[in-house]
């Protein structure tokens, strides 16, 4: 694992996929339980996702109502997180803002995995010309920094809407997913049980679904979580630059963007959405990383 410096190239731009642990640490961690911290993180993610889905049903104040009598109020009983410079309730905006992040995270990864994963598996299984053509294409696309490509496309492809943002970010993530899944499949495709299945005359389809898929699933899932964190960060940066969903719809990124002008008067406006975003990302990264070390059953460490 560590002898391949190109693995570090899985993510141009974010650097999040550079989580490469020393192999010797993993050896004794595999049999350990996942731990309290892991389940706390899972709980936090579930809570956030439920909050995003059922935000309308929750007894929250309006995220859009502007109360000009209560502008830049600090945290308190009436407004849990205080209000922003237009008198809107920050707590409600943080809860509703999670919708954009969750939608982008899930939507973009559906696109990324939907296209990248089957291609990656096929390329690693078929090898030959199919593999070399697609790997070269993906290599070319990876050379292009994702965030600059998304800024470029979103600045010309107007007007901007959530669906467009999800599509652009999703497509930008395809080469990354392809690369990870291809590498993972390559490791499995040469195993004895795959060869045995081939010798027994199993169809390609059967080998791909029954033999390869279950064995790359753990890596796929841990990468999926880290990938969600990465695309959410990307959306956050775009929103911060004013290139994501249009105001007044709240998102964590555009709330931080809006706080720029009132940084001195109302620091709470930046602190709460930042904390929400960082905690969400931290939990996703932690779960992903923990799963990866937990299921990392390769000979690398033997």
């Amino acid at each position, binding site marked *: 694992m560590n002898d391949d410096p190109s693995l570090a190239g899985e993510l*141009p731009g974010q650097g*999040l996929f*550079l989580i490469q642990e020393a192999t010797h640490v993993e050896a004794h961690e595999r049999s350990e339980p996942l731990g309290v911290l892991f389940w706390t993180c899972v709980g936090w993610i579930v809570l956030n996702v439920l909050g995003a889905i059922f935000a309308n049903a929750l007894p929250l104040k309006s995220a859009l109502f502007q109360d000009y009598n209560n502008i830049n109020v600090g945290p308190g009983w009436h407004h849990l997180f205080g209000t922003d410079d237009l008198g809107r309730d920050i707590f409600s905006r943080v809860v509703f803002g999670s919708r954009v992040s969750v939608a982008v995270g899930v939507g973009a990864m559906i696109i990324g995995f939907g296209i990248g994963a089957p291609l990656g598996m096929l390329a690693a299984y078929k090898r030959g010309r199919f593999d070399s053509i697609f790997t*070269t294409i993906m290599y070319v696309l990876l050379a292009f*920094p994702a*965030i600059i490509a998304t800024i470029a496309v979103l600045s010309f492809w107007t007007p901007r809407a959530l669906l467009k943002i999800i599509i652009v970010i999703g497509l930008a993530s395809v080469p990354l997913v392809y690369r990870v899944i291809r590498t993972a499949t390559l490791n499995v495709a040469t195993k004895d049980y795959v060869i045995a299945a081939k010798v027994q005359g199993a169809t390609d389809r059967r080998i791909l679904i029954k033999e390869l898929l279950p064995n790359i699933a753990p890596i796929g899932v841990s990468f999926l979580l880290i990938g969600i964190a990465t695309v959410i960060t990307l959306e956050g940066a775009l929103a911060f630059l004013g290139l994501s969903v249009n105001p007044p719809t709240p998102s964590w990124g555009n709330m*931080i963007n809006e706080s720029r002008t009132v940084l001195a008067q109302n*620091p709470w406006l930046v602190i709460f959405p930042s904390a929400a975003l960082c905690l969400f990302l*931290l939990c996703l*990264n932690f779960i992903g990383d923990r799963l990866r070390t937990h299921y990392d059953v390769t000979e690398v460490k033997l």
Partner: protein
Amino acid sequence: MLKYVTRRLALLIGIVFIISVGSFYLIHLLPGDPAVVILGTGASPAAKAALFAQLGLDKPIYLQYFTWIGNVVRGNMGTSFISQSSVAGTIRAALPIDLEIIVLSQILAFIFAIPMAMRSARKPDGVIDRILGASSFTLLSVPPFIIIVLLVLIVSIKLGIPHTGPSSYVTLASDPVGNLESLALPAITLATGSFVVYYRVLRSDLIATLQEEFITMARSKGISQRRIMWRHAFRPSSVALLGAASVNIGGLLASGFVVQYLLAIPGLGYTLISAINMSDFLLVQGIVLTVSVGVVVINFLFDFIINIVDPRISRE
């Protein structure tokens, strides 16, 4: 080696070609007639003629590409119809600021990452390694746009340190010390992101290298710990570090954009976002092209350097 370099060079040319086609096509993503969108509805015939000459809009699309790329290669990326200044000139004025921020941040990142990774690798799973590991993992989840906002909140607003807040950029020519002050927070922000990556990559690579037989050999000869670390372990591990730095370039530029946007530092990022907001599409196109080609070329150069440091790579 030569074969490897020619192969990579061919790939580089291919990538640059694809980037140029992509940047060219951006204009056609605009809804409606590009001439109207770029110039507005009340444009003068002279302005329209200039735009048509620049983009070749009256020709079929593949000829438009050749007209456009022909102009770009000659250093003519057109004239902004908003500011009436040349796109190439605007980019030349802004680019050095980005480069300065990146260079400063990389110096900071390496100064901290290399000794800390060595410290961690000496006793993996020790107290220091665990603390550094946990804090670098946490920092991994803090995006640059949050780091810079929090830094501005603390350093320039709470502590009131001059030249660090928004819209207080000082040029290098007018006041070098003030210039460093005004680029301190951007450099720290970019350095934090890079530090985390470099620390983690170098640490795991050093741990792997330190288990090699030649290290045991060096130890048994009685060579000092310090010398083993720098001469025997760091040299081979530096390849991974260079690789990480190479991949990091695109991210650094993007983080630089975010930072400049907040602080109104007139680098490429600030220019880009202002251009987007003013619908100055030719300028946006020019910056996207410059930055993308720049990243790809820098990555190529890094590959080349890595090859010189570790010739095994091209022989595989």
